[in-house]
């Protein structure tokens, strides 16, 4: 979607966003020539459809960490603007399960053990919807085998333990 300021014949630029509020996000665009502003407000259907496409709306990229996963497709933009979101609160070394929102996740997830930054980064290789279950499985493996932290070596050991090439 593009927005044009008709009097100036100039493309309007995304300035900031408000929400999500009741499933709606307001995107404020401004004309670089005349400074006029307009807001595009999504209804929950529109918010959800954009989120279902798996694209992020907003200037700049969202950090590709597990904690950035959120039910709001506008997360990246809101995070850049310092709008607090539930999923943004996770500490660097807390369990990734804490900040997760995956709908099917959370069931029986253990209390959580620390993850190294490298191990956390690898979680981007797991589809978001099943990330919570994956985290739970890995933490169970780590605890069962006496590790007190999940690092890349533990992930490799889990791979050979489960016979995954």
């Amino acid at each position, binding site marked *: 979607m593009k927005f044009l300021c008709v009097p100036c014949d100039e493309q309007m630029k995304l300035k900031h966003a408000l929400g999500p509020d009741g*499933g709606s996000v307001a995107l404020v665009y401004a004309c670089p020539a005349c400074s006029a502003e307009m807001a595009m407000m999504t209804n929950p259907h529109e918010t*959800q*459809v954009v989120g*279902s496409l798996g694209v992020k709306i907003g200037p700049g990229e969202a950090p590709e960490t597990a904690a950035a996963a959120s039910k709001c497709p506008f997360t990246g933009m809101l995070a850049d603007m310092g709008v607090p979101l539930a999923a943004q609160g996770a500490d660097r070394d807390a369990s990734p399960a804490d900040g997760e929102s995956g709908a099917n996740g959370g069931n029986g997830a253990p209390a959580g053990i620390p993850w190294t930054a490298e191990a956390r980064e690898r979680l981007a290789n797991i589809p978001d919807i099943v990330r919570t279950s*994956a985290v739970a*499985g890995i933490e169970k*493996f780590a605890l069962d085998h006496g590790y007190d932290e999940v690092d890349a070596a533990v992930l490799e050991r889990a791979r050979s333990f489960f016979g995954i*090439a």
Partner: protein
Amino acid sequence: MKTYSDIAGDGGSDVLGQVLQQRERIAEAMAGIDHVVAIGSGKGGVGKSTLTMQLALALGRAGRRCAILDADLNGPCQARLAGLERAPLLPGDRGMALPRTPDGLGVVSLGSLLPESEHLAFDSVATGDSHVWRATREFNLFQQLLGLVDWGRLDFLLVDLPPGAERTLQYAEALGPAARFVLVTIPAALARGVVARSAAALGTTPNEVLGYIENMSGYYCGTCDGVRPLFDGAAGDAPELGLPCLARVPFDPRLATASDAGEADLPPGPVLHALDEAAEQLLRCVA
């Protein structure tokens, strides 16, 4: 006044760029796969999932490296068929590690993560209106799976499709023009009529349909070691499929029992023979 194409970019989000990036990621992840073959039908319950697993095993017997992607996100069966109901998903340094059976067959199925007592649920801010966005979200998950799994070097990736003629078409478009199709039918007009619709839908795509497998083609009786008719005749007045028949696989209760138990191996007999025949035909088609 400027038009849409006069304006470069989209005002900040670069949605198009993100979509292209996702496509590149998928192409990169699948670069080591020689052949993608989707097993569809349009009709449910005709044996798509069972034959996908059996075809992968038969191709394995013929020395080919295979993996299965379970695209039936809402009714995933491949985890049970492979005995991988508890396979952990592990992130590697080049993608998600491909879960494997003890025999080395790669199987990616949501059934490995969701117990059969749970359904696949997505977060939504549009509660009660899932018909509006659900299919879009499912294809996004399917494409995530394609692009995130570390498939490695494969001769065949077999994709087990959900029912629905329109879905079959959508998967052709999601997989891209290089993916080929095998359709599964049974000798009943009710099934073949639906499979004919899927064939018609696929006819509008550049994707090649290699042929069909007629499943439940007679009943194998272990007591008299013979194949008896299961359905009364052929498919009555249903339209011809106009496709080559790759194999006719009889119904064998031992196959159903083994499938339920996640046991791969079948005793020698007409079913095993037909499956090897199907694999041979498939190899001939893609050669």
